[in-house]
């Protein structure tokens, strides 16, 4: 039996959509390997979160208990998860490719001497996985050999799991840690607070690029459109590098991957690295003054215009259709 252990990432007891996506992918792997899908959870607020995730179709929730797991530091987390994989006999460890998943899973794989597939987008019946390479310009079919394997899933490639009527049992397990080998220490977390929807969860994403020219213009020109549309805000690497907006808004090959129903790219040229993070969006709109900009090659609707004129006009036009 090929049991699956899903790493249920949470933020102080709350589950982001990316975790519900991992559970859904975990259930699919378990079905195809005739196994059960279990969830494992750790950190501050884990107990409440466990009761929550128990309602999403998993067969058991395991809470790994130890104060040293509070901040999900990689050395401790990898140790605790590796012992749990061994004691449960699970075949597949699965997490979403969030910043945390990317940090923890490879270390765990090394500890288990298990191969790992990063950011899979599909699960085949024969046990292989599909994952993008080369900024999404190639799709590889991957086979992982050995009794244990580790995968991270791309948050946009699977739907979020739906809640069920029943709740799975919750088991508390004392984490096995070797204190002498734990050397990482949490200092602080500088949270970027925002009232807007999360980039990876939003139905609409409006992203700005270097064309906005300043952080001030993001505020005065782009943000009114973002808010009028009830959207999340994203950005190109150039806009982040220039310090216009915080780093965690970067969409692309080396930032966040999004696939909302509507993606609006404003003053973004459409480099392959940016396209890699948004080209699976359902509808893509591009506003750019250069009609040759590569972004138009993936846009369903392109508007060749000066953004400083078009964006305020769009805010007004949005108001009209709403009222």
């Amino acid at each position, binding site marked *: 039996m090929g049991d699956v252990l899903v790493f249920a990432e949470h933020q102080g007891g709350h589950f982001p959509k990316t975790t519900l996506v991992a559970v859904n992918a975990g259930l699919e792997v378990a079905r195809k390997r005739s196994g059960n899908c279990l969830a494992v959870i750790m950190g501050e607020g884990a107990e409440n979160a466990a009761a929550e995730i128990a309602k999403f179709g998993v067969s058991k929730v395991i809470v790994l208990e130890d104060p040293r797991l509070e901040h999900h530091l990689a050395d401790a987390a990898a140790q605790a998860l590796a012992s749990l994989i061994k004691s449960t006999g699970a075949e597949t460890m699965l997490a979403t490719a969030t910043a945390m998943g990317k940090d923890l899973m490879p270390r765990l794989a*090394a500890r288990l001497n298990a191969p790992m597939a990063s950011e899979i987008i599909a699960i085949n019946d024969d046990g292989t996985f599909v994952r993008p390479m080369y*900024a999404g310009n*190639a799709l590889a079919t991957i086979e992982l050999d050995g009794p244990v394997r580790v995968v991270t899933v791309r948050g946009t490639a699977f739907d979020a799991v739906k809640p069920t009527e029943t709740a799975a049992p919750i088991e508390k397990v004392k984490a096995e840690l070797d204190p002498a080998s734990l*050397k*990482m220490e949490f200092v602080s977390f500088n949270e970027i607070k925002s009232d807007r929807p999360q980039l990876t969860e939003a139905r609409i994403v409006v992203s700005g690029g270097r064309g906005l020219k300043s952080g001030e213009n993001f505020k005065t020109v782009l943000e009114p459109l973002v808010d009028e549309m009830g959207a999340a805000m994203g950005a190109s690497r150039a806009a982040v590098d220039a310090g216009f907006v915080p780093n965690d808004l970067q969409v692309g090959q080396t930032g966040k991957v999004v696939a909302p129903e509507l993606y609006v790219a404003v003053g973004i040229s459409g480099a392959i690295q940016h396209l890699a993070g948004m080209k699976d969006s359902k509808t893509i709109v591009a506003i750019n003054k250069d009609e040759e900009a590569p972004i138009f090659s993936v846009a369903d609707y*392109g508007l060749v215009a000066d953004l400083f004129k078009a964006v305020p006009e769009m805010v007004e036009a949005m108001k*009209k259709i709403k009222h």
Partner: protein
Amino acid sequence: MKILVPVKRVPDPATTIRVLADGSGIATDNVKWVINPFDEIAIEEALRIKEKQGAGEVILISIGQQTWQEQLRTGLAMGADRAILIRSETPLDTLAIARAIAKVATDEKPGIVMIGKQAIDDDSNQVGQMIAEMLGWPQATFASKVEIAGEKCTVVREADGGLETIAFPLPAVITTDLRLNEPRYASLPGIMKARKKPLAEIAVDSLGVDLAPKLKIKALNAPAKRQAGRKVASVDELVEVLHTEAKVI
């Protein structure tokens, strides 16, 4: 302090990648090869630490074919002191690469393994974390700021929803993100000097580590191409079609 910087040879990020019709790989004619951009950031950071401390050694390491010497020479021209090319004629999986680098780190005893957070060809984002575990060292992934005080290191990391700061004793593995620094270009004198810097070659088999592949790429396919849509003439038309045709607003 010694700093070990693993370097990968990858297609220039501006290259248009084309999958071969038989799915055996990508077309490599017309590909310009460069140092993985994240590894360039790692080299830069290592050089800055050495310059700040006024002492130390920056050692580059690659696992690949003879052609990879080009990228190592470029790194030496940026200012690294010496390079090691572990010759492997076939590509290895991430576990094997990490094992080989961990073995060299065990022999060289660097204070830091500074490595790019991901290679822009296979986009795996695994090797740094694997090396850290194999050596039993702390890891600081996605670093946007590195500060060293004696044997202690503090790193600001690009996490989801904000910036996390962690601290740990050295030796450690640090993986570099885009905002850490802006890599320097190799200067002409740097390029001249690089020709004479030591570049050792070792056969990968001589390391005595397990290289058996556990991750196999069975096939490579081109993704479905997204069709370009159409241009609209005005903002009003745009909002109208989004409302009535695409029905997304």
